[in-house]
């Protein structure tokens, strides 16, 4: 009777799952044909997609890339025996204009370079997985590639050699030393490359100089303003007390920028003339205009929004009411109204001849508009934090700014990421509204292009191209925000 057993004594060998639950078939069964209703839904959806694509793709697939006018497009399409087809000749002829507007053709390297350098400047801010070496490598590489598009001269060859050497050297160290080796070297006291954030800070002054040109001394002077502010604070804080020093540290650079920077720039330019050919704002257009307005407004509206959100939660009556008034007023008017104020009303109030740059006016209005929204998004993040976090910060003995910087803001900003990125995307798309005040962004330009007798009557091709351009930007922003959320996820769900 011993050998009688009511449970198995040995393991059964593992068997493959039934074929109907694995592989493509399993996935299809699980996701698409799971029950009668889902099957019907799947078939209906596939039918719809096929029907839509069946109409759109033949239209898109149209050999009209080299056509010189709408009539030629029609001949080509007619010759191929189709009822209708897209006319891509317009994109072929006008894409440089859609990207750069009226920016002089021989200077278009500058905005292109500024665009690529923007990514180099943003990488250390946006991604933490890229090493310093990688960042400097990319910077040297972009500059090196850019030199090949400039007019060759003796100086340029020297620059090329220097940059090539830098690319090779940093590239070699990247390949030769793995990340962990490098970490050991650093721990052993090896000298690190400078922080790439230095370039990010420089880029703030570099970008306007590349885009608008002019003497190098204007951006240098603008940067000096910050140095002056810092010096004022450092020297006066022990003498006059912190609050007075802060106020003076804000006032001194503003005075410098308004009154002395122009003098400084022209004086220095007389001594050491170096600069790029100036380009007027009126020549900006197309995607260049959208990106200039969008990027500047995005970059400035986040810090402004944080300050406003904190101001709105402040206990100081004046700060609080100013923030509330600002936010509620700006949120209460449509962006288009602000743009009209920028384009029309300011002109009437400012004395004639005051050359207050139209793009600058628009950038200011877009920034102001976005920061009001940003403030409310961040306030939402602040409100979502448990009160215990504030109390814990107090209990640790942190002062207000330290508590905000170390405890409150990192959490509040993390919560607000989807809202912040939505605001950014909305702002970037809102830049197309400037076509209403006569600035030729891609949408405005599409109207101008249509006014060419060759292309009059073309609608969908232009709008499709613009949609594609904007989709690339907004979709990347949205993917980045999802990456950031994953990276910052600290909860243990």
């Amino acid at each position: 009777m011993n050998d009688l057993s009511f449970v198995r004594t040995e393991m059964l060998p593992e068997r493959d799952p039934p074929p109907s639950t694995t592989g493509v078939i399993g996935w299809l069964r699980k996701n698409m044909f799971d029950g009668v209703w889902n099957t019907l839904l799947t078939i209906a959806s596939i039918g719809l997609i096929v029907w839509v694509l069946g109409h759109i793709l033949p239209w898109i697939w149209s050999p009209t890339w080299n056509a010189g006018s709408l009539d030629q497009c029609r001949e080509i399409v007619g010759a191929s025996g189709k009822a209708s087809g897209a006319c891509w000749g317009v994109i072929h002829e006008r894409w440089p204009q859609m990207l750069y507007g009226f920016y002089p053709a021989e200077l278009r390297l500058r905005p292109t370079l500024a665009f690529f350098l923007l990514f180099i400047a943003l990488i250390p801010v946006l991604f933490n997985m890229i090493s310093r070496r990688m960042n400097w490598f990319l910077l040297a590489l972009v500059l090196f590639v850019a030199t090949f598009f400039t007019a060759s001269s003796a100086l340029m060859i020297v620059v090329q050699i220097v940059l090539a050497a830098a690319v090779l050297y940093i590239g070699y160290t990247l390949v030769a030393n793995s990340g962990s080796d490098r970490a050991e070297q650093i721990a052993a006291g090896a000298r690190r490359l400078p922080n790439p954030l230095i370039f990010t800070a420089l880029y703030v002054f570099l970008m306007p100089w590349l885009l608008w040109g002019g003497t190098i001394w204007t951006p240098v002077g603008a940067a000096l303003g910050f140095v002056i502010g810092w010096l004022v604070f450092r020297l006066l804080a022990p003498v006059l007390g912190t609050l007075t020093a802060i106020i003076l540290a804000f006032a001194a650079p503003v005075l410098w920028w308004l009154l002395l920077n122009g003098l400084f720039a022209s004086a220095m330019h007389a001594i050491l003339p170096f600069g790029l050919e100036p380009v007027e704002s009126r020549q900006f257009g197309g995607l260049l205009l959208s990106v200039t307005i969008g990027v500047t407004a995005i970059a400035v509206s986040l810090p402004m929004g944080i300050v406003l959100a904190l101001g709105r939660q402040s206990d100081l009556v004046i700060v609080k009411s100013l923030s509330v008034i600002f936010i509620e007023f700006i949120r209460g008017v449509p962006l288009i109204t602000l743009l009209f104020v920028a384009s029309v009303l300011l002109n009437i109030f400012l004395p004639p001849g005051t050359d207050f740059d139209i793009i600058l006016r628009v950038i200011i209005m877009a920034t102001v508009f976005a920061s009001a929204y940003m403030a409310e998004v961040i306030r939402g993040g602040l409100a979502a934090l448990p009160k215990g976090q504030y109390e814990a910060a107090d209990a640790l003995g942190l002062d207000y700014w330290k508590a905000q910087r170390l405890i409150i803001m990192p959490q509040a900003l993390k919560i607000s990421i989807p809202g912040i990125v939505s605001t950014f995307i909305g702002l970037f798309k809102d830049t197309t509204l400037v076509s209403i005040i006569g600035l030729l962004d891609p949408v405005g330009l599409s109207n101008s292009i249509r006014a060419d007798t060759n292309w009059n009557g073309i609608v969908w091709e232009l709008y499709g191209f613009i949609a594609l351009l904007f989709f690339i930007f907004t979709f990347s922003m949205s993917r980045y925000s999802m990456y950031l959320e994953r990276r910052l996820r600290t909860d243990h769900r």
Partner: protein
Amino acid sequence: MKKTFILGALTVAAMSAGAASAATLDDVKARGKLECGVNTGLVGFAAPDANGRWEGFDAAYCRAVAAAVLGDPDAVEFVPLTTKTRFTALAAAEVDVLSRNTTWTFSRDVDLKFEFVGVNYYDGQGFMAPKNLGVSSAKELDGATVCIQTGTTTELNLADFFRANNISYEPVPIETNAEGQTQYLAGACDVYTTDASGLAATRATFEDPSAHVILPEIISKEPLGPLVRHGDPEWGDIARWTLNALIAAEELGVTSANIEELAAGSDNPEINRLLGTEGNLGEMLGLEADWAKNAIMAGGNYGEIFAKTIGESTPIGLARGLNAQWKDGGILYVPPFR
């Protein structure tokens, strides 16, 4: 109270500065460039080509003024303006002259304080309908749906016309001409109405233009012309007589082909006065003696500009019609250069 004070101070500053900088001619010469307001895009009248160079009937006038004042037809900065920004841009001195297919009306001239310097194109509102609709006159349009751009004088003209003829219509509001074209072709409206020049340009782009007719009725007067600000009559004179010089050149047979020859001296004293070989008309305007010669050489005389940009040899194919010289049955009639 403080804000009122600041606004008041700004206004005073603006007015005093306005008074101080009344001499537009000096400003333009100091700047070395003419700032000229044009349409952001209107077929045949103003549009940038693939290289970003503005071309068209209105743009050609800007070049002529720049050539007359500065001697260089390319010394123009074109400022694209929308219907909403054009008048404030001119009033706020963002542009020196507005050449943007603007209808000369009483209130714009008097109430908005502008100075229309003449008419460079006599336009009028018309109708376009598909041929298979079977109408031959706008008076047969009772009950039709009409595509109409909102916020323009065309909208008001349309209402006036239908009321005067005691027939009814149903408006389909549209925002831009491109939208109008698409809606009309999609059959969202029976009839499309806008300026006759615009109708011709629109019809020219259709796949089968002969399937559409432009009805004979012209229901409004739309004299389009360049304009300047009130308060600087000398500048207004320059703008007016540059336009007149272009028209007079056609009347006198001065073309860009024979102008060099005629400028050496001719038997016709009026041509000599126009081209600066006799008299001192340029000096009276505060310009060089060869101002009109430069203006004509910029893009040709009025007839040449017309033929190149909107005339019958172009896809737009507008006939001269009212815009012919008075001798040829039109109403272009410039005062003598004397």
